[in-house]
């Protein structure tokens, strides 16, 4: 049984069909890539999985239960976290504060405990602080814990986004173009981190344009264009797939090669 399954997933906006009868599955422990030219519909797929959009048709199944149409916070509760294409952080909070907020689902926060700062509340927060520091270390932000998120350099901001998603402790992590705007060094670090995250037992669905990353870490890859799946397979198979080459580089190039 796949951890995530998209069955005939379709999304239309008025007359425009952004995602068209998409069938995708992700098994537990895999790193699966979702690639395609700009505008192919990749972020719309993510938006349907994470609850931002309701699917027009089709199903999103997580652990064999339908999550399509649920609200994002309910989906997060089921063990699914994501990052966003554009940098999305709590800009005016520190790195630790960002991560601590990410622990919301296990913070057992209530108005009574918050108001009276009970002993149990204090001990929970102390424990969470320790865990937050661990996550900060893991993504390489140990020296920047007290920095405001908006003051971080771009690469650190992307790392913080991942840290927040990790704080949710998801079974499935959706990463939307995690290395955009990173230099080669940072990109390699991120690739390594993603592999380590899988090593910790999480499953990853990755949207990315950087082919080195996609080919380097994905077990399997789906290629979509104009909202439809045009290819799937291992990195090697995808590289040699005629339709894929055509989609990315055009008819003429594909014909010559």
């Amino acid at each position, binding site marked *: 049984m796949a951890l995530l399954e998209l069955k005939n997933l379709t999304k239309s906006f008025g007359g425009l069909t952004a995602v068209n009868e998409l069938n995708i599955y992700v098994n537990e422990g895999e790193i699966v890539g979702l690639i395609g030219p700009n505008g192919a519909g990749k972020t719309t797929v993510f938006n349907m999985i*994470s*609850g*931002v959009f309701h699917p027009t048709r089709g199903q999103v199944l997580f652990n064999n239960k339908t999550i399509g149409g649920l*609200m*994002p*916070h309910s989906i*997060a*509760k089921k063990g699914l*976290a*994501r990052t*966003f294409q554009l940098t*999305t*952080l*709590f*800009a*005016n*909070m*520190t790195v630790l*504060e960002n991560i*601590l*907020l*990410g622990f*919301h*689902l296990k*913070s057992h*926060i209530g*108005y009574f405990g*918050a*108001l*009276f*700062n009970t002993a149990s*509340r204090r001990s929970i*927060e102390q424990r969470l602080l320790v865990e937050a520091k661990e996550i900060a270390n893991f993504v390489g932000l140990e020296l920047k814990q*007290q920095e*405001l998120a908006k003051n971080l350099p771009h690469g650190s901001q992307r790392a913080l986004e991942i840290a*927040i*998603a990790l*704080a*949710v402790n998801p079974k499935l992590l959706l990463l939307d173009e995690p290395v955009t705007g990173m230099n080669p060094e940072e990109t390699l670090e991120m690739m390594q981190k993603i592999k380590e995250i899988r090593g910790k037992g999480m499953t990853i669905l990755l949207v990315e344009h950087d082919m080195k990353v996609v080919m380097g870490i994905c077990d399997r890859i789906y290629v979509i264009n104009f909202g439809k799946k045009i290819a799937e397979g291992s990195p090697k198979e995808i590289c040699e797939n005629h339709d894929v080459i055509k989609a990315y580089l055009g008819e003429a190039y594909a014909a010559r090669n």
Partner: protein
Amino acid sequence: MNRVKLLKAAPFLALLIVIILIPFFLTNAYYLGVITLIFINVLLAASLWFIITTGQVSLGHAGFAAIGAYISAAMVTAYGQSSWLGLIVGIIASAIVAAVIGYITLRITGIYFIVVTLALGQIINIIFGMIDYPFGGLIGLMDLPPPDPIVIPGLPAIEFTSKISIYYLVLVFVLIGILIMHRLNRSRIGHIYDGISQRSNLAEHIGINIMAYKVQAFVIGCIFAGLAGILYTYYTGSIIPSSFTLGQSTYYLVYVAVGGGANIAGPILGTVVLNIMSIFLRPIKEFEPIIYGVILIVVILFFKGGILGFIQRLLKGFGRSSTSKKSNEDSLI
């Protein structure tokens, strides 16, 4: 409490002691009344600020003060109940209306929510003005009895017939309200509200049910507005519809904007400063709205973060580091 906390709290404790001792030095009933009114306005501004921390601005806050005031007064005058029961019922009424309205309207965001609350405040005001019994219609209610005495067996009864007693009664309730809202704001709950205000889409993706928290903040804020309305009736002994208009609602927003929104000290500062200024402007009361307007514009355009932000920047400038890493310039106000 450890030493650092005690040191930080010291100025506020000192201020509290001064406030408690004021009636012993200032026996003029008129001035006591003025300060009492400032306390009530502080509660209104602080409770509006509390709602704003989730990113929603209400221009109908006076309407909820009206609910508390009218319902509690009606309980006493029309239904002969004790004022303490009236207090409880008035607060519950504000809470219920806020919960229902909040649930229906809080999915509307931004400017549209402001317009909704503006309309709501007006509707509440007009409705109370329409109903002659038990709300007194456009004339309102006069000669409300003072709050019932508190009788604790073995101790002399605490009466509320003097200005001083009202002063302390209002002070106690306002302090409770401020303490509650301050503590919540400083806790993880306040953290959650802040996350909702800053980036609601990220907040919901980490599992935060933003509608639920927004409604809760709205209800809490409106409860204290209702309480403030009730305290107002204790202070004046009457209710007139014109005490709860859009004009009042905009004043509370102005107190928050001028004072700053980074923490609860902001609305408190804004209220106190503007109210004291108002006292000095009494001889030229005609011009007061113009002066208010100019100050408002100056603060909004040139003093980001309001008076509070300005003070915090000053303190930082003197080398004393702010313990809150939160940059006040970028709070919602």
